[in-house]
């Protein structure tokens, strides 16, 4: 859970590798993006978190040239998204939510095909393919058709394919959705390795733990706008330095923000004691990204997301934010 050091690769701050302002997009009457601003520095791991339908995937689709924005400006790797789309394509790779692999081809054939399309010669393609098969632990399955792969293997192949051309910027759209815990932690390891190699990574996720572990900086997307952004420490600090979880007799858990001081905790406990319900237990802890999320997005949609994200928290938790 330690925050990763940001900006491993020195880069002049006036040239972020992904630079977006005022991005808007509607599908029919539905306005999905209502003005997204963000900038990602070279070598950074940047996470977009938010509930379903917040606009995370649309943002990634626009930045990877799949979708044209209605308004706004964006540069990726120094190239203008609209005027120099091919330049953008040369420096990026996208691993989408649905594995973009060819089920009728084998893993090796998939990698060789994409290497060739990425401009590598035949012999370079073979070498790169062998490297990636080894690195993503797909050597044994390389001769099997991808249709027979498990979800985790497909995802690994998908990420491997994204790396054939050694992108400067890698977009990962919900890279671990639907994976078992083992495959998920394998994907996390790969993401960390790539970040250490200096690849800039913009990922979307519904899992706050994922953002907390991987990202140098996090932006919370809600209803088409960036609700907050910063390091996860900064975001947590915004909602108080520690939280008091109180378990009530009826099984409810409520969370009270405090400033971490004796007086602050005392104040919170006074409020607890004035509650007509009978308090059973207290737990003083540091705020999590879940708390940030709940505070920013509001109870209704966050409850839904936290069902996904924190299965271990079986009790209901209410966010008390002032």
């Amino acid at each position, binding site marked *: 859970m330690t925050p990763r050091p940001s900006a491993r690769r020195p880069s002049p701050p*006036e*040239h972020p590798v992904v*630079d977006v*302002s005022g991005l808007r997009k509607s599908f029919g009457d539905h306005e999905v993006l209502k003005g997204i*601003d963000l*900038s990602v520095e070279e070598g950074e791991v940047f996470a977009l978190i938010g509930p379903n339908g917040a606009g995370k995937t649309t943002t990634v*689709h626009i930045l*990877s*040239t*799949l*979708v*044209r924005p209605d308004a706004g*400006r*964006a*540069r990726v*790797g*120094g*190239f*203008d998204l609209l*005027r*120099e789309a*091919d*330049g953008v*394509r*040369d420096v*990026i*790779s*996208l691993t*989408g939510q*649905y*594995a*973009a*692999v*060819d*089920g*009728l*081809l084998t893993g090796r*054939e998939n990698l060789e*095909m*994409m290497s*060739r*399309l*990425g*401009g590598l010669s035949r012999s370079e393609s073979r070498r790169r393919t062998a490297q990636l098969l080894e690195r993503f632990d797909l050597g044994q399955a390389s001769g099997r*058709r991808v249709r027979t792969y498990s979800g985790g293997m497909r995802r690994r192949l998908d990420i491997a*394919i994204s790396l054939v*051309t050694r992108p400067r910027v890698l977009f990962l759209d919900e890279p671990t959705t639907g994976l078992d815990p083992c495959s998920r932690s394998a994907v996390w390891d790969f993401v960390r390795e790539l970040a250490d190699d200096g690849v800039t990574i913009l990922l979307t996720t519904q899992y706050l733990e994922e953002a907390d572990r991987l990202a140098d900086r996090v932006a919370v997307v809600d209803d088409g706008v960036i609700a907050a952004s910063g390091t996860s420490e900064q975001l947590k600090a915004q909602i108080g330095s520690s939280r008091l979880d109180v378990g009530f007799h009826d099984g409810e858990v409520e969370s009270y923000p405090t400033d971490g001081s004796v007086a602050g905790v005392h104040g919170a406990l006074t409020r607890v004691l004035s509650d007509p319900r009978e308090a059973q237990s207290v737990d003083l802890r540091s705020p999590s990204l879940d708390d940030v999320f709940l505070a920013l997005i509001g109870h209704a949609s966050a409850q839904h997301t936290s069902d996904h994200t924190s299965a271990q928290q079986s009790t209901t938790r209410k966010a008390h934010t002032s």
Partner: protein
Amino acid sequence: MSIAAPAPPAPSPSDPPPGGRSASATRTSGAHLWRDAVVMSHRSIRHSLRNIDALLIGIILPVALMLMFTYVFGGAISPEGGYIDFVVPSIILLCAGYGAGTTAVSVTTDMTEGIIDRFRTMRVVSSAVLLGHVVASMARNLVSTAVVLTTALLLGFRPSAGPLEWFAAIGLIMLFILALSWMSAAWGLVARTVDAAASLSFFILFVPYVSSAFVPIDTLPTWLQGFAQHQPMSPIIDTLRALLLDGDAGGAGWVACVWLVGILAVSVVASALLWRRTRR
């Protein structure tokens, strides 16, 4: 957040450097197109070979049709024999048309899967994907045409074409497959589901029945004759029959070519436009 300052690696299209950048750009995109088309054709041909069901239908259907028309209907339609010579050119085109029609299924399958998004985020020449499907369709259908011809010869088909006529006949068949494959590719972009895409094959399979393919047009009811005479299959079949059996097609050859080139041109333009539209 200012994005006014251009980053160093960004080439601006508004100021072409001296030395004819546009010419070199055209050359690289030509080379790109060739490379991408080769890779995509390779991919589509592999798909064809691995799609065992479709491959078997592509081989069994022609043979079954040939046997049916020769042994089941042949005696009734032409008791004195010789129907096989009349019907083989039609079956060649029927099967080639059906086979070309399956291109729509391959294209729709691609479009409904994530892999197209992958291609779109790479610097891949966009037409290469469709080109690959068309090349694979040509290869598939030339093989199935060879199967049809071999079966026909075994069953007693006796063409009287000379080398020049054979050359022209094969050219006509290839143009037919090419035009229908592009038409299918365009339909594959329109169709939202694989089932809808598959309907084209059946349409192509039925159109020849109301033409000069299996019976002379003057045996049809009067109200059908107009359609049968003026639909494209009739002149194409008449031309192929004339070439293979040393007959006289009259002006049908030109009419057939105009139809096919027309279908090809419209389909290529339509696919290009549809492809652009599918970009969300």
